[in-house]
């Protein structure tokens, strides 16, 4: 028995909007980074699902997922570095408190 494509997409969409809501709502910078990660992986899920479904025609979906892994790792490294240096500057990680760079 195979799981239909629509189910994968539904899970992916669900994960994506959970992540999206987290980014918008949460204030803890680390949690925001985790939510961004969630969104990326939602996209990954959709990509591998399509890749499996249309693998005979095109394998590029799977390849793209590898790219996203790398970019996600880089993004986390940079993001955590920013959070860390912001924390050293002022001991808060609440993003609403960090607004000194506004115009």
């Amino acid at each position, binding site marked *: 028995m195979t799981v239909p494509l629509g189910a994968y997409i539904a899970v992916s969409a669900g994960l994506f909007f959970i992540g*999206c809501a987290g*980014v*918008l709502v949460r*204030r803890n*910078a680390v949690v*925001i980074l985790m939510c961004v990660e969630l969104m990326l992986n939602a996209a990954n899920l959709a990509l591998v699902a399509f890749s499996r479904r249309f693998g005979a025609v095109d394998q590029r979906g799977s390849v793209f997922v590898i790219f996203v892994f790398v970019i996600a790792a880089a993004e986390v490294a940079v993001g955590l570095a920013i959070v860390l240096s912001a924390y050293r500057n002022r001991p808060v990680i609440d*993003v*609403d408190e*960090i*607004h*000194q*760079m*506004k*115009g």
Partner: protein
Amino acid sequence: MIALVWLIPAFPLAAFLIAGLFGRRWLGHWTGVIASAAVGLSALLSIGVFLEVLGGKEQTVVPLYRWIGVGDFSVNVAALIDPLSAVMLLVVTVVSFLIFVYSNGYMADDEGFYRFFAWLSLFVFAMLILVMADNYLLMFVGWEGVGLCSYLLIGFWFERPEPYLAAKKAFVMNRIGDWGYTIGIITIFLVFNSMNFLDVFHRLDQSAPAQNVMTIICLALFFGATGKSAQLPLYSWLPDAMEGPTPVSALIHAATMVTSGVYLVARSMPLFVAAGSSLEVVGVVGAITAIFAATIALVQFDIKRVMAYSTVSQLGYMFLALGVGAPVAAIFHLATHAFFKALLFLGSGSVIHGLGGEQDMRKMGGLRRRMPVTFWTMLVAGGALAALPPLAGFWSKDEVVTAAFVNGHAVLYAIGIITALLTAFYVTRALWMTFYGEPRDQHLFDHAHESPTVMTLPLILLGVGTVALGIAIGFPPEQGFIHRFLGPVVEAAGVVEHAPELATILLLAAVSVAAGVVGIAIGVLMYVRHRPDPAAVARAAGPLYRLLVNKYYIDELYDHRIVEAARAIAGASWAFDIHIIDGLANRLGWALAMGGQGLRRLQTGIVGNYALTIMAGLLLMLVAYGGYAAGIFGR
């Protein structure tokens, strides 16, 4: 020696650098000694160069380096050494040296001593570049350089308003003349594709351009010459230039810089000969200037102003000579005038120095007992100015008027003779008011003293030159040394010298001397015998006298007609610039700044807002894409 010709301007340049950089702190009064020594070395080298040219090297080009090279057009920094430039080098350096020595005494108490010698050395450098240059462009460098130094030195005492206003006037009027010079050399470049004197004259021989083009070139160059050499209509800066220190008046505004216009025309003689009618213009302008300035000099009371108008008048004689096709007479008069007019100015300076700065002749009188050396040397120079034989001025002025007569310019000849009479009169008047009679200001007289040796020695040497120079290089008349020496240059220019017969020469000389003697006699009658009394004559002449005292109202005319118009145009341009050009730029900048202020508020610094914006944008794009794909917005 000719190979070393570039050392001649190098010494004054070095003196300028030394005086300017080290004069104030370290050298003190040694500045003057060093500068004088440098110019003295230049003078010695010039004598060497002169002797070598005399020995047969008629034309040598000494290149220094290539200045501009574009395609087949090139301008070199190179010296053209021929009899004409050799004479100029000699006159400039020798007279400069004597005036430098004199300045050591005259400027001794001035706190700008080092500055004075720095500018004066720079002036000599620029003047030497002007006379040595082998092309119009390098000459222009010297031309502008002497103009700049003239400005700096007229305004030397810039703490008072008159000198700096006079300096500004001199600079602006010179710039107006320079406009003509620039037009001239640009046209020369367009027509001949060269600025080198020898190339231009060579190409002129091969294929002469149209007559009217030549006329434009010559009149433009001559307009430049009228600015530098203080001829009508650009003469009025020279009398005002007397606000500068007296050695400056002697060196720059009598002996050297003001003769550069004469030199320019003499150097460009082939062009003027080829352009026929423009020589007539030169002669007429020169003659009118000569008599015009002489009439003003009749009634001035400032001793330096009398000399200044006299200089304008004598420069007029030189242009008169050029105009009637006698460049040798012009250069001859230039050389003798450099000596006797420098002497007259230095003598006036000695008087002014002895009287503690007084320049008004009405407060002088009887000074011959107090200042014998100054008196005797000025008497010699005055005699030369009045063209009494055997002094230098006689030989050269006589050649000028003789040339006018022989070449068939009867009117110009008549003007020359009348001017000679006026000249003799005003020089008699000036010398009498200064040195003879009873002291008119007893207090000044009691404090008057002869100048120190460092000042009287140059006077004596210039006096020797004034006595000997004319007979040494001008005898026999029309065939003297100066004619043989400059002959090749003049012949190459295409000027035919008409040597008159001896009887004609003697007759014309007798007329000139008679004019001089009559002028002196009238002067003596009026000022010594008071028959008629000068004041009575002034009253009788009424409006004419006032016209002369006010210098024909030329300054007022220029002020009302030209300066005010220029001011109005400048004011309108200023307003346009401030309100339109600047206004536009400022409004634009203001609008952008305001826009930035508004947009700045979008950047809140709250990360959530940014994220929300991104999401909203993404959603909008998705909706738009989806709607487009579904055909909601039409295909």
